[in-house]
């Protein structure tokens, strides 16, 4: 009786569930299965227990990739959100065509293909004659090989990433800003609050739900960073990560193991370790939010 009553509803969600099962659930389950096997795609998979996981956890490249990722996340997420918030406040202060102009201008890097963005930045970072080195030269500073010096490579990537991601986050934050009632600012002004106090005591608290989304999304994106370091270092499946692996990140390492080393079992285990890390971080974010709301 109940099934008959709800049949139309089940029918309506069926297309999504079928596609979800085929293209999401099945790959996850089969990936989990292969993560316990030695498999190169041709031979039948051979069960190896947790050997793939222990091999990855003990590998030097994994440690390097995770170390790079930790520094990258620690800088790029807060910096990217601060820049995006600054841009959103700036654009929000304009009206009419100027608001449209700045919004579109800052959003432009988001729609730029990654390879084009990387080409532009390789030119900007070029030693001796690149835009940045020419600018440094005006201040009497010597040329820096930003993309081939292991002490500057990570920061060079962070600058590119902030440039690209700021536009996307700005649009989200801008939508949040538009939803803050103007009466709150008027009341604050009447009470003598200056611009900074308005931002700290009205804008940021009112933006909290949007900021939560932006922080969570930025964290998840940062943990999966791949295309920008891959392109900036001119990587391929046989050589990736740049000089001294300064731009080696987990997804790059995983792809290299899969398609360069044809070790699909190891790559699947890598994917699960990374997924576990992403799920943990996301769960912590939600827990922090609940704790903060209760408080």
């Amino acid at each position, binding site marked *: 009786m109940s099934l008959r009553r709800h049949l139309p509803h089940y029918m309506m969600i069926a297309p999504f569930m079928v596609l979800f099962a085929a293209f999401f659930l099945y790959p996850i389950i089969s990936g989990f299965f292969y993560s316990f096997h030695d498999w*190169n*795609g*041709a031979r039948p998979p051979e069960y190896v227990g947790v050997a793939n996981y222990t091999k990855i956890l003990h590998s030097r*490249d994994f440690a390097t990739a995770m170390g790079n990722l930790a520094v990258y996340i620690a800088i790029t997420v807060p910096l990217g959100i601060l820049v995006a918030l600054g841009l959103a406040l700036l654009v929000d202060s304009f009206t009419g065509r100027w608001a449209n102009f700045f919004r579109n201008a800052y959003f432009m890097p988001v729609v730029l293909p990654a390879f084009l963005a990387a*080409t532009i930045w*390789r*030119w900007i970072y*070029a*030693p*001796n*004659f*690149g835009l940045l080195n020419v600018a440094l030269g005006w201040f009497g500073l010597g*040329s820096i*090989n930003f993309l*081939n010096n292991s002490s500057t490579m990570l920061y060079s990537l962070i600058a590119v990433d902030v440039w690209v991601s700021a536009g996307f986050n700005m649009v989200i934050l801008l939508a949040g800003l538009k939803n803050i009632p103007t009466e709150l600012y008027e009341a604050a002004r009447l009470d003598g609050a200056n611009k900074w106090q308005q931002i700290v005591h009205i804008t940021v608290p009112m933006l909290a739900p949007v900021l939560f989304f932006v922080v969570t999304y930025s964290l998840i994106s940062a943990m999966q960073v791949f295309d920008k370091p891959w392109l900036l270092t*001119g990587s*391929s*499946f*046989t*050589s*990736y*990560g740049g*000089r*001294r*692996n300064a731009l080696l990140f987990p997804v790059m390492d995983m792809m*290299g193991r*899969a*398609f*360069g*080393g*044809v070790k*699909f079992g190891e790559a699947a285990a890598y994917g699960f370790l990374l997924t576990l890390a992403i799920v943990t971080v996301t769960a912590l974010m939600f827990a922090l939010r609940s704790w903060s709301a209760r408080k």
Partner: protein
Amino acid sequence: MKTLSILRSGAVGLATLAATSFNSMALAQDVALQYWVYSDFAQGDALAMQEEFVKEFTASHPGVTIEIVGKGDDDLTAGQVAGAASGTLPDVFMNSQSVGAQLVEVGALANIYEKWMAMPAEYRAQFDESALNACMPRPSELYCLPYTGFGSLLFRNLTVLEKAGIDPTPPTTWDEWLGQMKKIKEAGFYAVPDQTAVFNSIAEIYATTGSADSWGFNWDTKTTKIDPANMTKVLAKFVELVPLNSGTSRNDQATKDLFISDQLAFHTIGPWVNPTYAEAAKASGLKYDFVLIPGDTAGKTGGIRSYEMVGVAPGPNADVAFEFAAFLTEKAQMARWAKLLSRYNANAAAMADPDVSALPLIRVSVDAAHGAMDVAAPYFIGSVPSCYNSTVIDIASATADGEYTPEAGAAEMITKLNECLAE
């Protein structure tokens, strides 16, 4: 009775013939080949010519249809590896010989030795022997038909040479070339890109001193074949090049832009940059030429060579796929292909065709390929771990930066490469 028997036999014969014809027709109609090519070959004039080849082949093979799919380098490899795992391989495909081992390991490449041996001797004799040998890791194993290839060339900006007061006669030895580079720097230009930035440019300079015998891998012992004495000399060369280089890699767009804008004198790279430079010559008056990379002694040349290949996937379409691959790599097609793109290829008979060998880029490329060193041989045996190329780049760069002496750098490099291969 006899008449009845004849009629009966005739009817059976006709029925068999009809059934056979129907079967072969149905089989032929079912053959739809997927043909993956490099994305450069799937656009403009190159695509038009590939389509022409397909049209000619399908005209002589009724019922066969061929779909051309263009893919970038990494997408080709990833697609073929994933296709082998999922049973969705393209029937005929291009890729580089340097990823051959991965493709053999995942079962993406059919061993076409028997099909090859069944071809007429006249056809088999058309190919460059070393290019063909590179497809044969062991006797009775042939995993590809060699296709386009390159030997690295020394592109020279003649305006920069003139401004630096350098005689445009090509340098014949490394010392002569180095002398020119120093004069170029003194005149305020960049001599070369940073040759330590990518693996292939390191190999190009290694070849000025060493040869294929002391480069690549010994897969039996899992050790590098790099000779420490040769590598010491090569690392010393990189130290000398530091003040002369532009800091950009040979592959950077910035390097090409410097060359086009008359700020860079030399660019060691394959012939694929020539269309860009030829366009710049037309548009902005760039004066350039291309010569062989000089080695340590007169007559020896540096540079690397590598071939793209055409591979055939195992499976029900393998026979017709091989026929198509053989058609593509046959002299008539390779000569047309070479003329269109001015690109060297592995069909020696096509390269000797007077119309082809008259093309300057091909003439120099043939000599360059013959004198150059295979970049990652032997192929089709073991997958080169990523730590191998990274180690070579890291230690060459570190030595150029002064972190190692050339002797210490060479020793460290070889130790680390052996560790990497052993892992």
